[in-house]
């Protein structure tokens, strides 16, 4: 999807409309909870899509940043009396620093090697969270102090649906601003030819580091929201499976499509819930669905459908 500068409000605007419309008709707390999970996952996936879908750099350890964000709002308020919003910002800042620190050596790697290195990072974070029992409660996880705004504790799924929804709209707007800028063009260029990008004057190493740090911040904020929504957090949030889930959401929805990120997150969060109807065949059905989507919508759900619409105007 190519948007010029002047119609850059279309995507965030439509998304806002959809979120509000759905938010007004959902029947119960359960649905709001699922909705909030979709929106929170989508936030992390938008960030990962900048890295993976646009800049073409693989990360199989992105849940590591989700874990940092989640445990920032869990550990800091409980052990250090830091107000939750400050803890969230500190978590995002720390994720950014960690991304810059580990990105410098590992972003030189390409393809499979980068995948394995980032995977190692994710595993490392999960291990630290599991073993630092004194701070994190170990494998059983820990209870997260609820967010309080003006003395009011924010704990209903409804509230988190709206908070996550507005944050996602802002997140998508920011991502789109970035993509429609010199930095955005440079990071998309990396995907196809690093050599040509360098010759055109792009500092490839700096560009990779920039997008890695930005995507880490998205994941961290999503992690904080996840912890605050659930009220409880375990090291699994930073685990390898969660990283793979995020990558699957990017690919399923569409690499290099912001709306695809939301769709990918929606499919992978809602589908397992819907498939519980099939009881013991639930996981089998989920696998079959994912395979079918990848076979018939090879470029991801959103880009493939857009292409088909474009062909038959």
């Amino acid at each position: 999807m190519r948007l010029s500068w002047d119609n850059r409000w279309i995507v965030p605007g439509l998304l806002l409309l959809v979120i509000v419309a759905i938010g007004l008709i959902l029947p119960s707390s359960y649905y709001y909870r699922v909705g909030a999970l979709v929106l929170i996952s989508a936030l992390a996936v938008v960030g990962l899509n900048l890295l993976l879908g646009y800049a073409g750099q693989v990360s199989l350890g992105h849940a590591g940043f989700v874990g940092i964000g989640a445990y920032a709002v869990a550990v800091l308020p409980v052990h250090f009396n830091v107000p939750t919003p400050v803890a969230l910002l500190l978590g995002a800042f720390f994720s950014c620093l960690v991304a810059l620190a580990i990105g410098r050596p590992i972003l030189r790697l390409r393809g499979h090697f980068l995948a394995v290195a980032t995977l190692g990072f994710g595993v490392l974070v999960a291990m630290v969270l599991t073993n630092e029992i004194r701070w994190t409660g170990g494998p059983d996880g820990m209870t997260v102090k609820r967010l309080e705004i003006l003395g009011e504790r924010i704990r209903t799924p409804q509230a988190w649906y709206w908070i996550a929804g507005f944050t996602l709209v802002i997140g998508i707007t920011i991502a789109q601003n970035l993509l429609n800028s010199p930095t955005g063009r440079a990071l998309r260029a990396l995907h196809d030819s690093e050599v040509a990008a360098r010759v055109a004057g792009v500092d490839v190493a700096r560009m990779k580091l920039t997008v890695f740090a930005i995507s880490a911040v998205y994941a961290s904020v999503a992690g904080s929201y996840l912890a605050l929504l659930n009220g409880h957090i375990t090291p699994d949030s930073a685990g390898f499976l969660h990283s793979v889930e995020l990558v699957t959401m990017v690919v399923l929805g569409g690499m290099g499509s912001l709306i695809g990120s939301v769709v990918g997150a929606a499919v992978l969060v809602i589908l397992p819930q819907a498939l519980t109807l099939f009881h013991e065949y639930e996981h089998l059905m989920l696998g079959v669905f994912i395979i079918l989507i990848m076979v018939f919508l090879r470029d991801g759900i959103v880009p493939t459908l857009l292409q088909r619409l474009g062909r038959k105007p």
Partner: protein
Amino acid sequence: MALLAASGIGISFGGVRAVDDVSFSVNAGEIFSVIGPNGAGKTTLFNLVSGLYAADAGNISLNGESVTGLPPENLAAKGLSRTFQNLQIFFRMTAIENVMLGRHVHENKSVFRHLLGLPSTGRQNRETRDYAMELLRRQKLEAIADQPAGSLPYGVLKRLEIARALACEPKVLLLDEPAAGCNATETAEIDHLIVEVANTGVGVVLVEHDMKLVMAISHRVYVMAQGRMLMEGKPAEVANDPRVIEAYLGTDIQGGEAAHA
């Protein structure tokens, strides 16, 4: 003072001296062609001059300033640009976005400004786009501006690469076989474009196998064989030099390339 000067540059890969003790200089507005049989080291020489390889001997200067060992991203900012023998196109981007990327060195690089989507970024995007559109128009490619580059034919992509290289307003332009694989009409257009670019004061270094093109537009021709300079001279001198003919025929029994000359 020469715009681009190399003195005694060389590089080895394994035990092979791919480029050895090569010296040349290119002036503003000049078309300087490098020819030689396959494997003579022409593309390696380009990779050295454009900073993709680091020379293990010799010096390179651009506009009187030593740029030896500088990476390509720094050379771009100093006014050196190039194209590639095997296309290096951003296939996922549109044609015009490919050219817009060529403006990178002239654009603001503040990531925070870009994230916030300030009006100044919008203004800059429009300026960059206008500039890129002008370059496409110059090659009559404006109709395909918003098509994905991945869907365009080879000949168009070759010209798109030249447009991208020109977008940074280079002082020196290295063209690695710009007409390879192009039909006669496209070759004529590229030929015309190169002359036009040189007339604006850009120093053009050209590697090309199409000898008709080389002989027609070059001011000076530099002949390489086995990584070294064989001779340098005006096109007519080079074409009739026995050493040059021998280099082509002696290394390649078919004489495929010499036949064009």
